[in-house]
């Protein structure tokens, strides 16, 4: 084969060097998605990371592996993977990921043929997808794009290398790679129009992928397999059934995002937001509150992804807020609920989901290992208590006995209750008790609550006996114990309080630093549980701030420092991760509306122009109007002529004779016209214009006119 090209080309050795470079990069890139999965695989990841630069530095070392090592490699890898599975049969996916890393490492350190490169691509794709599914991170898109670009480039190089002569026999010369020289060669060889075209194509690929993603039909099978079940969640911090003094404060020290919320109507965001997650009804000596067995057992297993609060107080009213939550992994297995609601809809069916809608608690089987989305429909914030209405069946009341009524702790509590003053109404008691607490203690994150001989052994009682400052857990815990001592059923509630408004992505952001503990007291008069927040600075019943509504609330909580990445993450959750059939229908509706709007506007515009012309024509005519009209027509004709001439000049500058090009176009158009009569003659004239000498040309305009006439006749 020969070509007459003058531009330099990459030779086969250079193509193989590029192939090696891309294959190694691809393996390293896909391997580094593993840390995001929360799977322990450093034992393979680190060697792989070290091997990548080493094998790029010395590609020829890949041929030095002895034959027996090659023969033993796969049995050994399979044996290791089997042992991995055997060690913990419940964790299949981590073993599978480690097996993939082993294979990638093997492929990285040995000479690769075409099929080995294909294997690297498939293994890498597996890792990238698994990482995306497990992490649901916005990074997934970047990883996938980088992977796709590298993989497509590698496949292209493989195709070109195959065409240029196929694989070189080991030990090939190309392994003496000098990357700087190669980079220079690639730069010299690069055909910039093609490179730009390739870049454009890649952007097109991204655009088409987005389009395919949006328009792929969605069906809701409500039947989840999923990879998450194959991997156990990481050991997460966060709220659990057992909260010890200081646990909430620990969570507060983390500035990370706990969850973000998309609100249906930002004017309906209340001024005071309490995100209720967990109700702790049992106090264990030593400053530990926990969920009692009775309450835990009251959470019933749910098999649906949509749970309607049939016994709730909140009917689904039109215009009622609907909030979508994007719950970050590791926060808790209990879902934050900002108020009473009519229905909760989960993005994915959850195995082991438990809920007690009377109690107002929804719990997953375990803390989610990835972002978890759910939607609350028909929210109602005015109700202070979410809990059960019927005290007779109130599960919480059965387990709310005061702490060792007759012992030393009981004596301390009774003494303080007397100090607070007797009250028969829960609200009055709550108010007096909070005041009493806040008078004795200030708020502080750090608490010095060391044991002393003259003070009770229980940390909360000891704190009550002194005047040290305390944090929300001390205030809420002390309130619960004092209320119970006074004869009022009370319990501790943990969750989050407040949050900020991200003006970029227009959503609520609740951080771990917003973690909070408060109390609930049972009001026998109204037969409801009242929220009581005795922590200094808090609104006791959450009512005094209700005057602030709408935009004022958002202005007050707007966080101007919200980063772009945070906004991007919310958009990722909102537009990509949470994109479902409903979103697709909404998008289709929006597109239809936009299209109809355009059509309407165009119709209106045309109608307006028509009316203007009609009006203009109906006006009395004089010589000025005649002249003006003639001038306008002349200008239009001149512009048309100028456009035609300019186009011909432009065509001539592009290369080739415009007449010949036009004749070629007409020949193509008349190709299907048959061969009779005038068509034959005109086609002959067109061929003369297209191929013949200029001196033999007929008049081009006449020929084109005749061709146009034939074409019109054929259409009729």
């Amino acid at each position: 084969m020969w070509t007459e090209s003058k531009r330099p080309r990459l030779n086969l050795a250079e193509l193989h060097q590029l192939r090696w470079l891309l294959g190694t990069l691809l393996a390293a890139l896909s391997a580094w998605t593993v840390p995001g999965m929360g799977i322990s695989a450093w034992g393979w990841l680190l060697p792989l990371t070290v091997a990548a630069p080493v094998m790029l530095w010395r590609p020829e070392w890949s041929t030095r592996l002895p034959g027996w090592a090659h023969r033993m490699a796969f049995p050994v890898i399979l044996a290791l993977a089997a042992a991995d599975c055997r060690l913990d049969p419940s964790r299949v996916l981590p073993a599978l990921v480690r097996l993939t890393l082993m294979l990638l490492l093997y492929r990285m350190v040995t000479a690769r043929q075409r099929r080995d490169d294909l294997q690297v691509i498939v293994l890498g794709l597996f890792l990238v997808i698994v990482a995306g599914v497990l992490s649901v991170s916005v990074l997934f898109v970047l990883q996938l794009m980088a992977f796709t670009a590298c993989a497509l480039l590698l496949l292209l190089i493989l195709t070109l290398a195959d065409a240029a002569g196929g694989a070189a026999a080991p030990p090939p010369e190309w392994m003496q790679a000098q990357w700087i020289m190669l980079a220079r060669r690639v730069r010299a060889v690069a055909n910039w129009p093609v490179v730009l075209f390739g870049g454009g194509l890649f952007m097109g690929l991204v655009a088409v992928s987005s389009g395919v993603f949006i328009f792929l039909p969605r069906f809701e099978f409500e039947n989840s397999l999923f990879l998450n079940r194959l991997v156990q969640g990481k050991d997460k911090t966060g709220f659990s059934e057992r909260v010890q003094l200081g646990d909430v404060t620990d969570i507060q020290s983390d500035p990370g995002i706990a969850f973000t919320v998309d609100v249906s109507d930002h004017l309906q965001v209340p001024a005071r937001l309490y995100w209720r997650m967990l109700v702790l009804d049992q106090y264990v000596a030593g400053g530990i509150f926990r969920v009692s067995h009775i309450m835990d057992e009251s959470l019933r297993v749910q098999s649906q992804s949509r749970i309607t609060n049939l016994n709730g107080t909140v009917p689904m009213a039109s215009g009622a807020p609907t909030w979508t939550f994007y719950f970050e992994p590791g926060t808790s297995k209990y879902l934050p609920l900002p108020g009473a609601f009519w229905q909760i809809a989960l993005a994915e069916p959850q195995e082991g989901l438990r809920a007690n809608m009377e109690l107002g608690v929804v719990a997953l089987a375990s803390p989610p290992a990835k972002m978890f989305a759910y939607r609350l429909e028909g929210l109602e914030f005015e109700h202070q208590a979410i809990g059960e209405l019927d005290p007779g069946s109130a599960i919480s009341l059965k387990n709310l006995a005061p702490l060792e009524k007759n012992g030393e702790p009981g004596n301390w509590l009774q003494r303080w209750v007397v100090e607070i003053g007797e009250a028969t109404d829960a609200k009055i008691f709550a108010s007096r008790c909070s005041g009493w607490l806040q008078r004795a203690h200030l708020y502080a994150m750090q608490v010095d609550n060391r044991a002393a001989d003259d003070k009770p052994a229980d940390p909360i009682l000891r704190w009550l006996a002194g005047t040290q400052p305390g944090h929300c857990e001390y205030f809420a815990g002390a309130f619960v114990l004092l209320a119970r001592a006074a004869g009022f059923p009370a319990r501790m509630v943990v969750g989050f309080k407040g949050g900020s408004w991200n003006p970029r992505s227009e959503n609520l952001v609740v951080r771990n630093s917003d973690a909070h503990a408060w109390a609930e007291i049972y009001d026998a008069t109204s037969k409801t549980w009242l929220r009581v927040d005795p922590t200094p600075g808090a609104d006791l019943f959450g009512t005094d701030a209700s005057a602030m509504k709408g935009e004022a609330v958002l202005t007050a909580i707007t966080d101007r420092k919200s980063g772009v990445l945070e906004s991007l993450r919310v958009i990722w959750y909102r537009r990509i991760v949470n994109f479902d059939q409903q979103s697709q229908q909404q998008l289709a509706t929006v597109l239809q509306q936009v299209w109809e709007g355009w059509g309407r506007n165009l119709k209106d515009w045309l109608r307006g122009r028509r009316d203007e012309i009609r009006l203009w024509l109906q006006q009395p005519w004089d010589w000025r109007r005649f002249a003006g009209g003639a001038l306008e027509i002349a200008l239009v004709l001149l512009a048309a002529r100028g456009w035609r001439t300019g186009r011909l000049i432009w065509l001539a500058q592009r290369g080739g004779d415009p007449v010949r090009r036009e004749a070629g176009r007409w020949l193509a158009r008349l190709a299907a016209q048959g061969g009779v009569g005038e068509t034959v003659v005109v086609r002959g004239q067109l061929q003369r214009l297209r191929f013949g000498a200029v001196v033999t040309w007929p008049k081009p305009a006449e020929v084109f006119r005749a061709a146009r006439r034939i074409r019109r006749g054929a259409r009729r």
Partner: protein
Amino acid sequence: MLLPPPERWRLRPTLPGVLLGSLALGLGAAAYNTANNILFIALSVLLSCLLLSAVLAWMNFHGLRWRLCERAALRAGAEATVTAEIRNDKRRLPSYGVWFDLAAAGQSQRAGLRERIDPGECAAIEWRVRPARRGRLRLELAAAGSVFPFGFLRQTVGIGREQEVAVWPAATAYEWSGGAAGWRPQAGEQRAPHGPRGGDLRAVRRYVPGDPPRVVHWKASARARRLLVRDFAAEREEGLLLWLQTSAARWPRAEQFELLCSLAATLAEDLFRTGRLRAMALDGEPVTAARRTEDVEAFLNRLAVIEPAAGVELTEGTYATRHGLMTFAPDGARGVAAYVDGIKTAAA
């Protein structure tokens, strides 16, 4: 509206393409089963890659023009090169990795572009062909194909561009055993020797294409400022008339007839090359003068397709009055002998 691909145009997945398709199918099943948008994204990217692959494959072929270069003839048993010329008529984009299939004598050979063809440039692809026997050989540029760009899809375009070429009889070894011709090779010498030309110089004439270079009269050419060649008397008077009789009665054995064709073709070329061939004749057809190479090639083209004639055998009396008549006759059961004026001159 979706249009079917044009006839003879095929887009088929390769093994990696099948794997990718299976992967996309699996991903799609998982995505629909779980309604997981991460999987939908991966599925979208895979499908887009397939789409991009198909678009690039189409663009790779778009604007490519090809033709099978004309070839005069081939020779049986001898390897020859068949060339196709490929031109990239695209304005900006090169084409890569295109192969072409050449079908000849029921066999298909594939040859491909090892390098890219830049816009507006040409490349040639060559095949080595060795026809087994004389006759007419149909060379067909059967198909063009490529797995560009990613190797997922094999795009093939049926071309069906045919060219029929003559396959001259195979060259054969023969033994020159002397004879009446002016040219006298040593006894036992094989193939045509390039001995001195016989005869006196009769005149100097203008060069005619096909004249051997050695007869160019350089001094006279320099003086006359045009190419002149020496015209030997022996050329006109002593050159040989090669007369081939193809009567089936004379050549009942097919292999002997093939040998006759080979010997006649070889002698015709050798004699012409040494300036000893005056004319050629086939059975009762008019005599063709051997002035130019084209004359000999036309004779060889006839030999390529000639078959034993079933008609009445012509006697040597047809051209008996001619001097230097070379005829052929069976030499034993398998061999063929050439006679000049009735004297055995060569045998194969």
